């Protein structure tokens, strides 16, 4: 606990601890869903609630069956002996495996598209010569603000007419658009602190525009680009409304599979998938934090 100054009154002492406890409860509220999901995904029973055995830490009440179910669900011969044929079966027919494959495929394609276009646009937008800067910026950010249902409905209506709905390309385009605002925001934020005299220095030393960009600008903005890309990826990875409207069963992603899991056949397999997704988000968060530190170090800002 932090040391309180000597002039603190009794009332303030009490308030200090009451305030800390309130904050503790709010943090609990924030983290509770994640804490609850983890143990429940190891439940041996097909319920969403803690059994007596789980509370007594009885090993028999815990199992990995729902994690196995991620692999088995949808297989042609789930009980066949474990060999290459079994693996091929789950790779080709497993419902969740297909969803995972789709999610990564769509997510990576959408991320590449939105990061490439978004970074270029952010560089353009951060130049003072850009005409109608504010208006253009607000249009490019709007996919983040417009309610998803309107975006998805509009795309569903328009893409069906140009034969893009129910195709991978349609879903990728939708996700790329939804991801670009994040790329623009993060890259613009990196460029705000960019020292323009570095470019002039590089040019005065004889470097061309391309060399300057590659050797001077790029290394400085790359952390912003990567974290923007991570945001775009997680947006696509987590997006379900556009998928609901645009995708056929063939393009089912993880959130789409979870959606039907929650609505139709509620089983702890969803919790097992949820646990894996939490682990994934922890990894992404760590990468982002490392990038932030690297960026600060490069700019000479030391964290105290």
């Amino acid at each position, binding site marked *: 606990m932090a040391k309180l100054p000597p002039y603190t009154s009794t009332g303030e002492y009490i308030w200090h601890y009451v305030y800390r406890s309130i*904050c503790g409860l709010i943090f609990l509220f924030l983290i509770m869903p*994640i804490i609850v999901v983890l143990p429940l995904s190891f439940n041996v029973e097909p319920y969403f*609630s803690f059994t007596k055995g789980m509370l007594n830490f009885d090993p028999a009440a815990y199992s990995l069956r729902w994690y196995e179910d991620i692999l088995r669900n949808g297989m042609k011969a789930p009980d066949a002996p474990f060999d290459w044929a079994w693996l091929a079966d789950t790779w080709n027919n497993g419902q969740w495996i297909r969803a995972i494959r789709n999610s990564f495929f769509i997510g990576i394609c959408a991320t590449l598209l939105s990061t490439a276009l978004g970074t270029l646009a952010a560089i*353009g937008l951060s130049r003072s010569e850009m005409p109608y800067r504010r208006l253009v910026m607000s249009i490019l950010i709007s996919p983040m603000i*417009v309610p998803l249902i*309107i975006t998805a409905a*509009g795309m569903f209506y328009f893409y069906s007419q140009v034969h893009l709905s129910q195709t991978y390309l349609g879903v990728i385009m939708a996700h790329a*658009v939804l991801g670009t605002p994040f790329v623009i925001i993060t890259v613009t934020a990196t460029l705000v602190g960019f020292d323009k005299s570095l470019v002039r220095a590089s040019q005065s030393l004889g470097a061309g525009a391309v060399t300057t960009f590659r050797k001077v600008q790029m290394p400085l903005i790359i952390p912003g680009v990567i974290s923007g890309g991570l945001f775009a990826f997680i947006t696509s990875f987590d997006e379900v409304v556009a998928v609901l409207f645009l995708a056929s069963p063939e393009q089912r992603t993880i959130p789409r599979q979870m959606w039907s899991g929650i609505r139709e056949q*509620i089983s702890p397999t969803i919790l097992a998938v*949820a646990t894996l997704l939490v682990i994934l988000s922890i990894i992404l968060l760590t990468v982002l934090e490392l990038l932030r530190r690297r960026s600060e170090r490069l700019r000479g800002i030391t964290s105290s």
Partner: protein
Amino acid sequence: MADSQTAPLEPITAADGTPLKKKLAQALFRSRVRAVSLVVPLFAFVMASFVIPIFALMWQGVYNDRFSSHMPNLTEQLTMWDGLTEPNEIMYGALVADLTTARANRTIGRVATRVNQEYPGTRSLFTSTARKAKKLKPPFKESVIKTNKKWDNIEVWQAMKITSQDLTPGFYATALDGRYTVDQGFVRQDENRQIYVKLFWRTMLISATVMGLCLLLGYPVAYLLATLPLRTSNLLMIMVLLPFWTSLLVRTTAWIAILQSQGVINDLMVYIGITADDARFSLIYNMTGTIIAMTHILLPFMILPLYSVMKTIPPSYMRAARSLGATPTMAFIKVYMPQTIPGIGAGGLLVFILAIGYYITPALVGGQDGQLISNMIAYHMQKSLNWSLAAALGGILLAGVLVLYWAYDKVIGIDNMKLG
């Protein structure tokens, strides 16, 4: 000497002899073109895959040619009709002719659905008369009315006149619980048919509640994070960022596990003895569930802007206020709070904008009374297939969101939006 007197009269030139002013304009133009050409690819992409689709859908909210394209003869007659006099024989003749072709082309269902949207309860009237249309003999007026007495009702004809106009305010009227009529213009819908305005109000109410709760929960946490030493606050920040980065569906699923009647909270309540086993609280599949889950999901969007504003407030201000004799409460209210207003504005507006268009969470945990306007739009897009009404409802929602977005841009500026 002579040189120095004449020199200012001649324009200053660059190395290649062009005037410097012109050269500068050229250089500025080039850099402007360079900036624009960097933005153009994304701009074109966003236009093609986002802006145009939304405009195309919104256009459906005021334009619907389903009736006129399938019933061309009748449409022509209806345009000439004043909408008040008794329909004449020619109009009935056009009706029979169009019904016959519509039935042959199997488009009668679409026509019937379209009129039914305007005047409920007429679907079967169209399909059944179309079945008999081929055999009807002149005079058509009598023979048509013989098949179904409803054709004598002038309101059916008025509804057809409304639907025959491609450009119609009818869907917006319906979205606002009204009806557009030939003779009176806009009329309020009957009391028991008014659903949409109530739903808009409920959406606003739930969004405002969520915003209020987020502020109530987010403010103390942001203050704590901003005042603690950086090392501790960075650790605690993980607790805010982890939910922020976790999938929406994971969090919604978790709330189902926590709040359902056999869930963690209820089990705990029964265990402690707050409630009996057979009188468990219903915390989910209703408005409570929607509000709890949405507050949790949107809370980081409140904490992060508040935190970034609070971090810039020097702690010495509070100490100065204390040393000048203010009580801690007084110092907080008079000195600290006013400086956090930009953060409150940014976080509050962002949470409200995001809450007002929420779809997933209400659809999964909202039950009956926790549904928002987005869920109604989805219903009309996917179930009732009344896309024009969905577009009208969406148009109203979009207008509201854009006004808030504009306010956000004016007050905070979208350039200042920060993530994580």
